[in-house]
């Protein structure tokens, strides 16, 4: 179980890295490597060229920019998990990290790399969608920003082009008193989950406002539940309503079958987890 041979490049700055990306062949960015290298060891991935961005220290940051928390491409999971800024403004991310991978993997892996990998069962793509994060994609001479909901296209598929690097993640600070909920079921803590449900919402005048809900591990990629959000907006938070919404979301889901868990199980998990997540979010919003 050894990787096949590749050309190794370690650019000194971002422009150099971007220039290398245009050079053709199967060229991959090597950030934390915690998903890419296992695939290379299994020879499921066999890039011709790896561009190691680990020395691009200008991309290693988590910072506050007015109403946005900006996270650079090289910010490791461990740094995000233990960041005071994240704890203060985006506690759902800190909470989720208790369920994501293990310490040694979080020490190397990067949040942006995880998003680019776009595993269907990964938690962060769902969280970025309800936080309405923007992903900054850079290429030589240009930059564009893509909303998280548009970034994830399918399993291991994103909107990123071959000559682009995800250089920054921009997460708007949620409004005051935004409640959040996070639940997942995995075989073991730290495993990819069979189903993750996340939500944020506010309570205004006793009614649910700006509900955002997303699922991971069920469909081909993490998805926002627009129907559930519309059904929830403006309603009084009640268990009966949550159960109804969960039932509806379960019915609408198009779960990916796998040997380890069938579609009916995934629907069951939506039914079980969504009401809990909404209940937690409401409690935190009050």
């Amino acid at each position, binding site marked *: 179980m050894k990787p096949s041979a590749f050309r190794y490049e370690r650019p000194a700055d971002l422009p150099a890295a971007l220039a290398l990306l245009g050079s053709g062949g199967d060229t991959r960015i090597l950030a934390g490597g915690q998903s890419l290298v296992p695939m290379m060891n299994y020879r499921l991935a066999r890039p011709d060229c790896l561009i190691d961005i680990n020395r691009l220290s200008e991309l290693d940051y988590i910072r506050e920019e007015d109403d946005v928390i900006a996270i650079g491409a090289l910010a490791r999971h461990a740094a995000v998990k233990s960041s005071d800024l994240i704890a203060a403004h985006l506690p759902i991310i800190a909470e989720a990290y208790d369920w994501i991978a293990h310490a040694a993997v979080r020490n190397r892996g990067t949040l942006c790399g995880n998003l680019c990998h776009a595993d269907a069962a990964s938690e962060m793509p769902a969280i970025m969608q309800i936080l309405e994060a923007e992903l900054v994609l850079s290429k030589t001479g240009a930059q564009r920003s893509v909303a998280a909901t548009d970034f994830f296209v399918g399993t291991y598929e994103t909107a990123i082009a071959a000559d682009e690097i995800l250089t920054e993640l921009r997460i708007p600070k949620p409004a005051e008193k935004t409640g959040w909920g996070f639940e997942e079921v995995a075989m073991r803590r730290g495993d990819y989950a069979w189903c993750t449900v996340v939500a944020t919402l506010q309570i205004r005048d006793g009614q649910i406002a700006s509900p955002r809900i997303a699922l991971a591990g069920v469909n081909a990629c993490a998805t926002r539940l627009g129907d559930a959000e519309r059904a929830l907006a403006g309603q009084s938070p009640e268990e009966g309503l949550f159960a109804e919404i969960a039932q509806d979301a379960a019915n609408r889901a198009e779960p990916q079958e796998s040997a380890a868990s069938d579609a009916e199980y995934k629907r069951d998990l939506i039914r*079980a987890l969504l009401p809990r997540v909404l209940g937690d979010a409401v409690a935190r919003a009050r």
Partner: protein
Amino acid sequence: MSDHLKSNVIPPSRQREAPRAGLTWIGQSMMRVEDPRILSGKGGYIDDITVPGMAHAAMVSSPHAHARIVSIDTSKASALPGVIGVYTGEDLASVVEPCPSFASPPITQHAMAMGKVRHVGEVVAAVVAEDRYVAEDAAELVEVEWEVLPACVDLEASAAATGDALLHPDDRESNVALDESFAFGEVDRHFAEAHHIVKRRLRWQRSSAQAIETSGVVAQFDPFKGGYTIHANSNFYNFIPFVIGGALRVSPGELRIVPVLTGGSFGSKVFSHKIIILTAGLARLAGVPVKYIEDRLEHFTNSDSHGSDRLYDTELAVAGDGTFTSLRFTVLDDYGAYLQFGVGTHGNAMAQVTGPYRIQSFGMRVRAVLTNKTQQGPYRGFGSEVTNWVMERMVDAAAEELGRDPVELRVQNMIQPDQFPYMIPTGNIYDSGNFQKVLSEAQTLFDLDGWRKKAHAMRAEGRCVGVGVATCMERSVYGPTEWWSLNNKETPGFTLTSTPEGITVRLDPSGKLFVTLNSPMVGNSPETVVAQILAERLTVAPEDIVFNYSDSQSGFNGVGPQGSRFTAMIAGACVSASIRLEEKLKRFGAHMLQRRPEDVELRNGTVAVKGLKDQEKAFGEIALTSSFFRLSFPDGEEFDSGIETTAVYDHPLSTDPAEDRSHLGIFYPIVGHICHIVAVEVDPGTGKVEILDYAAVHDNGTMVNPRTLAGQVWGGTANGIGTTLSEVFNYDETGQFTNANFAEFAMPTANEMPRNFKLGHVETPSPFTEYGIKGGGEGGRLGAPSALTSAIEDALSDRGVKIASLPVTPPILRGLIRSAEQAATR
């Protein structure tokens, strides 16, 4: 005693050291002798071995479960720079014979496939290259043309398959490789007279040891220097030359197997003969030393790490008052593509198939089914973990059907403390025990009454909380008849009856005891055990004992750590060696003290005059004098230089099976007893199980080292938790093993283990082994699945969920709950 057992006479005890209080070293939780070198990274595992000129092998593995090999083109691979050679099954067959098999008649198995492949991962070609990276590059360039055949994946369907779906048409006309029936006692009469018959169909699915180190070999061949030198992480290195010499076309004496520290086995490395034959053959073909270490995928798909995979149709006959009278079952076992280890796992289960209960007769039909999966190998419990679970499931089922309390029903049927040695219907005996005491200590440790009330109250609130109790046997000190006693009487195969364990002890002129062991360290504590026993018997300090491992040419009898035998067996060898050394020491020491040997004794590492304080000679001084100053002693052989002995201990208590197999003889007689009690909560919406509390009480006779024994119990329990809750084999309908990796084959991490595990011990010494020691290497896994299953069923009792199959992963358990919910609303 039933008539069928009358010919099975229990031999007298050969115990020399009686169990007793006041021992100095035995019973101490001494820190392990093995640890400092391991902790400092200098253990020396198989992949740490390098020899000059060594090359590396990589395998080309079958992507198909069942296919004919039409052609193999190795030309591109051979042309790659750094490649020494590329070899197919036919090439390998020019230097090796088929693998040995415990099945009789054998199922032909080649270390590298010839003609066709029978499971995903089977090796079809191998590359030997200058490094592993290049070897893997070349392996990808080997082109194989396949003709895909129908794959047999389902156990029952495979048993009925014909035509191209037959795995071994040359050896068997069916995929059922063995089909044997047995009746031990008056099974039919007991069932005819039964007041109630409990029936269950029970499924125990494939599980796996998955030691963190894979299997590996470094092999060298030199025809001018005596054949093969092989480093291997086999548990059994002093025995396998006799098993595989024929396959390697050398005499056992031309096969030097050198042991290494082994990174876990749990049975999976007991033999390792296929990988040894494969690597040795490659070394011979390539003309250079070859290292082959399985990667994790290869260990999952082509090693010997898969455990039992069985379907039982079981019946328990019960009298009007709840007394169990007879047990019978038909069992199908999915052995995978080969039957290298025969049906030894079923032979093993015959040691304790009726559990701790007074069941008068037992009947069985066993059918070994071949399928297109990786072959089974041994895994902690070796088949008895399955029958423990089956027995305990049947008792729980009986309690439910009879409206009895499951614990009380167990107590009613348990063998009484005054009934030992107790012979079970298969002919094996239980040497000693006090099952009632183990149960009662476990109940107290766990607070069973308190927990049952608590669970009841929590269920009333709508929570799914339950408690499970398992009272199970832990047979130890295995005898080898298990490998062949269930084979057809006309073709029983290799009817081996020896499992000796040897030791060499030499008192060095400096006063250190140099010990040579003949079995490897695999995560057990062979050096610590021997240090404690020799220190006890010879009155020396454990730190004055130095350890060494023989290789198979310098070694003596050694069968290794398996079947929970090593501690009890090596204790016997230590006692034999100590008796002889004591005699020599006294002879030399008495002469130096100018006394008669009968007037001296061993005291704190000296030979000392009985009753006199200062009249003594330190062992070191005696050893120095006896080694270097021959003329200080009289003429005569008895004063030949040096103090050294080699001793061997044979199985303490075994008899032959009856010719007609009306019983199987005594073969696994030193039995421990275990009680596991667990409380769980099930999340009914997700099927997740949380362990709320756990207590285990084990009786392994006299404990040599309580802490290392506790380590075995905890580790075994972790294995049992994995087997029950999370470790699942996903074979799809084409025979692809889709989760052969550590990310998806979910072995418990520290997060999955119970938070408040409580462990207790009862010590009922064996009357047959030295000091009364029993084995204890498998117990956790022999009890945990039964207790957990029972607790989960109890937690879901209000919802009518029944558990008849393991594992119960969250998706599976949620599926059972969903079915019960749907049935209730119908």
